[in-house]
């Protein structure tokens, strides 16, 4: 049983690490940690007349992320005097929410990793928002459609998107120029050529990797570029075909023939020794959350970002992720919680304030039109990528299928342990079974 304690510790550490990576760190001094930060944890919402309604907002972002949340919460609290929101940091938020959802003590607003919706919405622990949207005349068209799709279960909407992200191609301008590559790649062929030219080996030592192939989990993205989809409409895997084969062949060529990368090259390199930041990697797929980190290197790292190169038939693809806000069914003040969610996610000024505070792309499209995003050479390619980006399939077993069936088989393929045909076949068989075993239980 002691093991569970360490399990919890691991879980909280990993979520903290996740929050750290997604949250980025805004070096600007606009966050204002007021005395609320030090005030004691969750006091249950007291209901006495005249006093403002107190709402509890749970999130698992600490450090800079916590300050960013508190900036927004303070701004909301100042904007009116009926509702008072308090941010409560829950390092192990999801586990905590599981117990709180059934035993009372549920928060009123929850910071939500959107892909979890397909798992939690069927359990009736989230409150649907469609009625609020209709009553307040909020148009769904103002949000990224894919993000809303991820927050939807059986035609009911369970939250609004707070941030959206997708991976685009980061390239080191100097390394590309030195290797005689004039323009960043726009398709698979150009990407391969540029990767070959920028790779440098010293005997058996890889000095500069042309292109990162460290994350087999990006299969989904490549499959879209090859013109495929991960799942069929009826919830089965859909990559054991020539589209999936095209991705594996491409990876095999890059890794084992062109040798532009070496397995394990980036493993364990933290932020301070990041291969791209230190000029050991010429091109890599990454998300907007890395912009802040890479910009810190200033003149030492001259980099650019372009939308993901297109596949052999001109198909484009990237995977959209991001966070949202949801209202738990257990909240005693859902109407007030909605006011807060609306204020933050569906108001141009506030969404923009959030964007500038946290350096995230907000899910509210009118805010994207601001020059802050449109005139910035780093934000622009991400905005273009978001136009074509698709969410991960909303099947509750999807992440398990990807992590336990697809990625392990692809890793075996990358290391020459099994053929492309076997890889796809095994990934399909194991994947279909995992999808079935982890399908929705109502």
């Amino acid at each position, binding site marked *: *049983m002691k*093991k569970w304690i*360490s*399990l919890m*510790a*691991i*879980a909280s*550490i990993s979520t903290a690490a996740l929050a750290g990576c997604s949250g980025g760190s805004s070096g600007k001094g606009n966050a204002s940690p007021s005395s609320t930060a030090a005030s004691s944890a969750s006091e249950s919402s007291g209901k006495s007349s005249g006093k403002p309604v107190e709402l509890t907002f749970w999130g698992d972002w600490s450090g800079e992320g916590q300050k960013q949340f508190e900036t927004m919460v303070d701004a909301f609290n100042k904007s009116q005097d009926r509702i008072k929101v308090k941010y409560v940091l829950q390092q192990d938020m*999801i*586990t905590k929410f*599981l*117990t709180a*959802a*059934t035993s009372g003590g549920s928060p009123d607003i929850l910071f939500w990793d959107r892909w979890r919706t397909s*798992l*939690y919405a069927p*359990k*009736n*622990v989230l409150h649907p928002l469609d009625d609020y949207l209709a009553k307040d005349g909020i148009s769904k068209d103002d949000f990224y459609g894919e993000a809303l799709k991820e927050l939807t279960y059986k035609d009911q909407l369970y939250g609004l998107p707070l941030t959206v992200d997708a991976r685009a191609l980061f390239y080191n301008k100097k390394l590309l120029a030195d290797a005689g590559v004039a323009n960043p790649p726009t398709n698979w062929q150009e990407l391969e050529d540029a990767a070959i030219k920028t790779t440098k080996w010293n005997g*058996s*030592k*890889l000095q500069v990797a042309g292109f990162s192939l460290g994350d087999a989990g990006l299969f989904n993205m490549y499959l879209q570029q090859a013109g495929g989809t991960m799942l069929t409409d009826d919830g089965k895997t859909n990559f054991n075909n020539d589209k999936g084969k095209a991705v594996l062949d491409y990876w095999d060529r890059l890794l084992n023939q062109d040798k532009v990368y*070496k*397995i*394990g*090259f980036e*493993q*364990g*390199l933290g932020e301070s*020794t990041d291969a791209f930041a230190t000029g050991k990697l010429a091109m890599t797929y990454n998300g907007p959350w890395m912009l802040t980190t890479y910009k810190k290197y200033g003149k030492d790292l001259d980099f650019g970002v372009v939308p993901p190169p297109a596949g052999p038939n001109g198909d484009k693809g990237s995977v959209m992720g991001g966070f949202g806000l949801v209202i738990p069914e257990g909240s005693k003040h859902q109407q007030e919680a909605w006011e807060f969610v609306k204020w933050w996610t569906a108001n141009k000024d506030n969404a923009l304030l959030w964007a500038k505070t946290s350096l995230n792309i907000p899910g509210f499209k009118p805010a994207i039109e601001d020059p802050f995003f449109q005139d910035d050479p780093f934000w622009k390619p991400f905005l273009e990528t978001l136009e074509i980006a698709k969410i991960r399939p909303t099947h*509750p*077993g999807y*992440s*398990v299928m990807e*992590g*336990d*069936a697809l*990625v*392990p*088989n692809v*890793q*075996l393929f990358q*290391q020459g*342990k099994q053929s492309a045909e076997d890889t796809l076949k095994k990934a399909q068989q*194991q994947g279909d*079974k*995992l999808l079935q*075993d*982890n399908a929705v*239980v*109502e």
Partner: protein
Amino acid sequence: MASISKLNRHQARTAYMFITPTILLFVIFTVVPVVMAFYFSFTNYDVVKNRDWVNFDNYKRLLHDDLYWTTFKNVAYYTVIFVPLNILISLGIAMLLNFRRFGVRLFRTMNYMPTLTSAVAAATVWVWLLHPEYGLVNTLLGYIGITGPAWLAQTETAMLSIILVTLWQSIGSNMIIYIAGLQGVPDYLYESAKLDGANALQRFRYITWPQLRPTTFLVSTMSIIGALQLFDQAFVLTQGGPGNVTKTPVYLIYQQGFNQLQMGYASAQAFILALAILIFSIVNMRVNKSEESVV
């Protein structure tokens, strides 16, 4: 007579009072959860909504869960290599450091240090040490002309790396237990053996090793239990990759329960794991069976 039994009763009452807090905690935090988990393993419990009785469905599903059996194979492989090496190395170091000599304590402390570091922090450092291009291990190998592998990323070496890192971290405490055991071996045994002309190897074979049986039993049982519950180090070092070769049952149980909300199924998995630990421990007990009963 009456007064003696009265005294006994009084002593018994006091004894129960003393152990009550511990027993209560044990019951609340260990016995009750175990019983509940056993019950849940026959339901589709998901924490928030369902708790319907599903008979043996979870266990039937387990039979066909290839991934779960793969993880069992992984920890079995790990255990078979890890436990003997653990005993061998910690006993070896214990014997080396079982002297009263200046500075020996320093070495004992240094050997014990890895045990004190947090598993996650230590594993993080090892990820750097094992980096294929910039890691210390491969740099050293490079000096003697060997191109080291990508330790954690290759299917051949990933589990070996985890074994080495966990060994490094666990031999310290076992060394201490062995030193205590060695100091409990009476000197007159060695003395009379020497008089009879036994050499060092014979003395180890016929005196030290049999005398240490209870210690070895303790060390091996603890490391078997620990090995089958491998999680933290494997999680930090390889996240279960590459190709599922370092995924462990505890990893799956956690994922199934907390990420997929299938607590019922996760409980069933946990019970099978507990059963496996029991079997391994019984085998171990048989192997270690000594003349004087240990348990």
